[in-house]
């Protein structure tokens, strides 16, 4: 067998494994979410199908597949069918670029499906493609609520992509590479980027919630306001595909936060004293860290109410985007005039220049604290209740937001 064929087959095998893992993960994620939401609300959640409801995802899958797949008369059939597939495809593709361990660590193979030098940019591009699934789905349904929902959703996702991408510029400037492996090794030597980019992380974190359509920014499928937004006319397996895409993009967002700010697949070095090399084990650390963020997603969903659409847009454009820009300027200024680290070419070694990185971390933390402390007082700057026809204005103000 020629080498290129072997490589292609192995890549194919790896992508199959990743897809199967993601789909199983999605299935059990729905179960975990329902159980956790239940417990948050002092209920049990699902506990009927099999021991600990472990067969519930299977039952859900069977139900979704055999449910009537309603075809809307006015729908554009091709696009209507393609839209959920587009959504789920790009959600799956995006995850393939996340490294789960050091090179050649998975039975001699690399624990990633593809590793590009433009890794981060490609990932951002792929996650952005998800908006096509939503928008096309809303448009192709040939009905008004999905259309409105699709428009709102695409506006939301495009808006938050800006602050999401901008918040990562600081990271890119510090690391000097968009390759995920470089970012992970940089953190292994210099400390988690969370320490130096606290402000950026919080912006990214908030944007990730909006980007993955999770509460409190789950307006795309706002049940109460828009029936179900772009999902209104979808049923059965197509609907399930959208759900799949949503949960997988949640995984991807978690994996991104882990890789960019929490040291990626590297485990704690302390444990190496007990089991040598444990911090280099592939996959396990990535999953452990991702599980934390996935739990956070569910916890936030159980706690925080959906915000109004105009508030959402103001938050994105008038607060997060300027803050992300400010963070970019801060890092650029710091790296140009104060200090940083310099990579030794060809090696994963770094030497300090100027004052090093810690003052930047402190600055970032101070900015974050100032933002949190001034949060209430500065709200008028970006979230003004506009006076609407006399009395309503006072109502709007009294309602508070």
């Amino acid at each position, binding site marked *: 067998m020629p080498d290129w064929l072997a490589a292609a087959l192995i890549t194919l095998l790896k992508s199959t494994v990743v897809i199967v893992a993601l789909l199983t993960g999605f299935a059990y994620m729905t179960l975990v979410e329902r159980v956790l939401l239940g417990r948050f609300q002092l209920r049990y959640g699902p506990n009927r199908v099999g021991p600990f409801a472990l067969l519930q995802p299977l039952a859900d899958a069977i139900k979704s597949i055999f449910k009537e797949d309603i075809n809307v008369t006015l729908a554009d059939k091709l696009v209507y069918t393609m839209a959920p597939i587009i959504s789920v495809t790009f959600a799956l593709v995006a995850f393939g670029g996340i490294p789960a361990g050091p090179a050649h660590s998975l039975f001699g193979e690399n624990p990633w499906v593809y590793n590009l030098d433009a890794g981060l940019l490609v990932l951002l591009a792929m996650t952005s493609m998800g908006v096509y699934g939503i928008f096309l789905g809303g448009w192709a349904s040939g009905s008004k609520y999905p259309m409105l929902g699709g428009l709102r959703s695409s506006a939301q996702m495009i808006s938050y992509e800006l602050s999401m991408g901008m918040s990562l510029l600081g990271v890119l400037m510090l690391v000097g590479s968009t390759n995920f492996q470089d970012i992970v090794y940089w953190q292994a030597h210099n400390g988690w980027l969370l320490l130096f980019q606290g402000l950026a992380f919080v912006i990214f974190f908030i944007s990730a919630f909006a980007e993955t359509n999770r509460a409190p920014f789950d307006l795309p499928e706002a049940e109460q306001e828009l029936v179900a937004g772009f999902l209104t006319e979808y049923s059965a397996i197509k609907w399930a595909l959208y759900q799949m895409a949503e949960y997988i993009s949640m995984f991807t967002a978690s994996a991104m936060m882990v890789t960019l700010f929490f040291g990626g697949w590297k485990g704690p070095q302390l444990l190496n004293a007990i089991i040598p090399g444990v911090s280099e084990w592939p996959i396990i650390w990535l999953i452990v860290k991702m599980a934390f963020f996935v739990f956070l997603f569910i*916890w936030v969903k159980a*706690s925080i109410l959906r915000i109004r659409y105009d508030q959402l847009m103001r938050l994105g454009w008038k607060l997060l985007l300027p803050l992300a820009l400010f963070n970019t300027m801060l890092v650029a200024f710091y790296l140009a005039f104060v200090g940083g680290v310099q990579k030794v070419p060809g090696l994963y070694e770094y030497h300090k220049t100027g004052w090093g990185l810690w003052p930047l971390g402190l600055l970032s933390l101070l900015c974050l604290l100032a933002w949190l402390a001034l949060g209430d007082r500065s709200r008028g700057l970006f979230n003004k209740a506009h006076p609407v026809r006399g009395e309503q204005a006072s109502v709007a103000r009294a309602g508070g937001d």
Partner: protein
Amino acid sequence: MGVLEIAKGMGVTLGKLFQKPVTVSYPEQRATLQPRFRGRHVLTRHPGTGLEKCIGCSLCAAACPAYAIYVEAGENDPHNPHSPGERYAKVYEINMLRCIFCGLCEEACPTGAVVLGNEFEMADYRYPDFVYGKEDMLVGVEGSRPQRREAAAKGESVRLGFRVEGGPRPELEGVTYPQ
């Protein structure tokens, strides 16, 4: 809503995560009802003599807003009476699908014969099975039709899925529910 409030709210929800759920796992655990819960009717008897209280006057059927009750009166045999009056209910049927469990029949009854009990587990498959006769409602019959049918098929005794806080009302003479 400031950051502190968000943190406070998240703290509250996290605290709930570690509390015991308040859910009553109904079919396995018994649901708790109040004594005045209005469920399936009971036809009571006089405690001393054991005679049926119902005298077949049809006032309950007249009072019923859903026309769910059908009464056919018969003359009592003086030597072997069913009820202390001249007449008794030869046929007494309530259609549980029509019944709205308002309790007007109980209020209309001059002898306190028909009383709304606490049983509510009456789900069944066929329309005719929802018409309950005297043999389904007289005091001492425990459980609804489907419950008794199932219990007979399994050879077990009827298990009621609820308990009544403080026991049944005094009007329900001779009825016992799990406490």
